[in-house]
């Protein structure tokens, strides 16, 4: 399988503070890659660099075959992104949000209309087509945000703590959607604080103080650290942190 994300010696400094400290990893096509770490470990910063939102201080990375330094615009065409903060337009209707973002990614009008109906059908949202997004429950909003992020069929989708504040049932449904996306060949790059979710990933990396301290499949990690679950692995590693929570 080809690597869709290749990161080599990536570093990001803010003044004297090293947010991301020389990290390297590869992610394969269609993989669900869990990016774990405590608050302030540097996950979001690393992810923002990969999305072209921020420039690295040093190091290299290729995302979807494009260089993060010089080809950010090409990267942006090929990725989807869902931030921790809900970022669809609350004062637009469900279908209007879909149409807007699909339009932004250059999809054709009739293709959008067709795909919108299929999507709403899959989500069981037919009745909510004309609902303003602000009137949807949080879990629904998150599902919609994810669907919009992958609507234009990107190579990679970046999810930044997508299930924060969502109930367990909806979280489970959310992960089913992630699996579906991965089945279709979309690479999923996800950060989370829920360790049970980490178990669903094909591979996880655990960041501590800007460095990747461990990276493997959940099964291998548990064996390596002789732990019952990923939660335990995470606690073992997070103890090493000397950085204050920010």
């Amino acid at each position: 399988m080809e690597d869709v994300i290749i990161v080599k010696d990536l570093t990001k400094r803010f003044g004297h503070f090293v947010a991301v400290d020389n990290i390297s990893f590869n992610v394969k096509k269609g993989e669900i890659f869990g990016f774990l770490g405590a608050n302030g470990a540097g996950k979001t910063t690393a992810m923002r660099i990969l999305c072209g939102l921020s420039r690295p201080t040093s190091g290299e990375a290729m995302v979807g075959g494009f260089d993060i330094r010089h080809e950010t615009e090409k990267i942006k065409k090929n990725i989807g992104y869902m931030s921790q903060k809900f970022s669809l337009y609350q004062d637009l209707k469900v279908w209007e949000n879909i149409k807007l973002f699909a339009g932004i990614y250059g999809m054709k009008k009739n293709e959008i209309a067709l795909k919108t109906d299929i999507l709403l059908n899959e989500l069981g949202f037919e009745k909510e087509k004309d609902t303003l997004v602000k009137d949807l429950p949080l879990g629904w909003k998150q599902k919609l945000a994810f669907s919009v992020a992958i609507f234009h069929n990107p190579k990679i989708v970046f999810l930044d703590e997508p299930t924060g504040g969502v109930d367990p049932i909806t979280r489970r449904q959310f992960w089913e959607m992630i699996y579906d996306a991965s089945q279709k060949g979309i690479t999923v790059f996800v950060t989370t604080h829920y360790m049970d979710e980490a178990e669903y990933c094909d591979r996880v990396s655990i960041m501590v103080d800007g460095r990747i301290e461990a990276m493997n499949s959940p099964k291998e990690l548990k064996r390596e650290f002789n732990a019952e679950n990923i939660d335990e692995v995470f606690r073992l590693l997070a103890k090493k942190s000397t950085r204050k929570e920010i």
Partner: protein
Amino acid sequence: MLGYLIEKEFKQIKRDFILPKLILLFPFIALILLPYAANFEFKDIRVVVVDNDKSSYSNQVLNKLRANTSININYFEDTYVKAMELIHEDRADMIINIPLGFEKDYIVNKKSNILIAVNTVNGIKGSISAMYAQNIISDFSHEKNFSIQVLNSPKMEIQLLYSFNKTLNYKFFMVPALMVMILTLICGFLPAFNIVGEKEKGNMEQINVSPITKPVFILSKLIPYWIIGAIVISIGFLVAWLFYGITPQGSIFTVYLFSFIFTLAISGFGLVLSNYAQTYQQAVFMMFFFIMILILMSGLYTPFTSMPPWAQTIGSFSPLKYFIDVMRCVYLKGSNIVELLPQLYALLGFVVVVNTWAILSYRKKN
């Protein structure tokens, strides 16, 4: 891509509870209400007359003054000193002193003089009262075809008002300038607040990871407000015509051309602020801060030329100043583009400077 974004902006504006109503109400309120608030016409100017000549000519002058509705001749005194006492006691606003030999001077020299003394504790009222009286007397002298020299009248800088607004109606002066305010608020403030709002809500992040380029994004914010601005200013022209019968003496095309250039300048200014403001609160405060200065220094309420030179220097950095100039000149004097070239260049200068700044500061934040 731009089409989708503009469609979205219009939907959002339309769905907003307050915005559409306020945008439509704004030109009416601004143009119907505000000219009265900023009304510098003075009624009931109390005059004390010292007629030393008591001749047929002096009487004709007084009759002219009596005919003016703003001027009330309340007292006659024998001496200037007694008249001055009335001013001190605040029972009169103005002394009109006709010297002995007023009529004789006319017959012999074709030349005479009248002294006007005004209480200028309220400077604006003082100058305007004096100007009323001066106007009446000069009318009289034209009729009689001789010259009366008016002495001691305060120095005034009211050429525009005086020469091209014969009825001295302050509304004629204010209405064109208030249209500038309307454009400033709609095309300068609204898109800037809108951008900061998206930043604060987190929508901006989603836009930043999408393939939308910065110019497209900014245009998608500006174009809807340009369109709204054009509609609102047109409503403004209509209101001015319907309520006050004010129409531009010059070409309406000139007005629209300058409106467009001014809009480019003021939206660029809004963009610069939106790039620096991280929150709505900051944006609102910055806007207030600058707009107070821009408006008060622009000559909207007070004549620009009456400000001290250093203040005029500061004021000349306000694009509002130039556009207000243009609007008054086109509306009252009927100036054409050639006469307004200095203002045109100044405004174009603003367009280039602020928009370059907007683009540079936008990059820096990324």
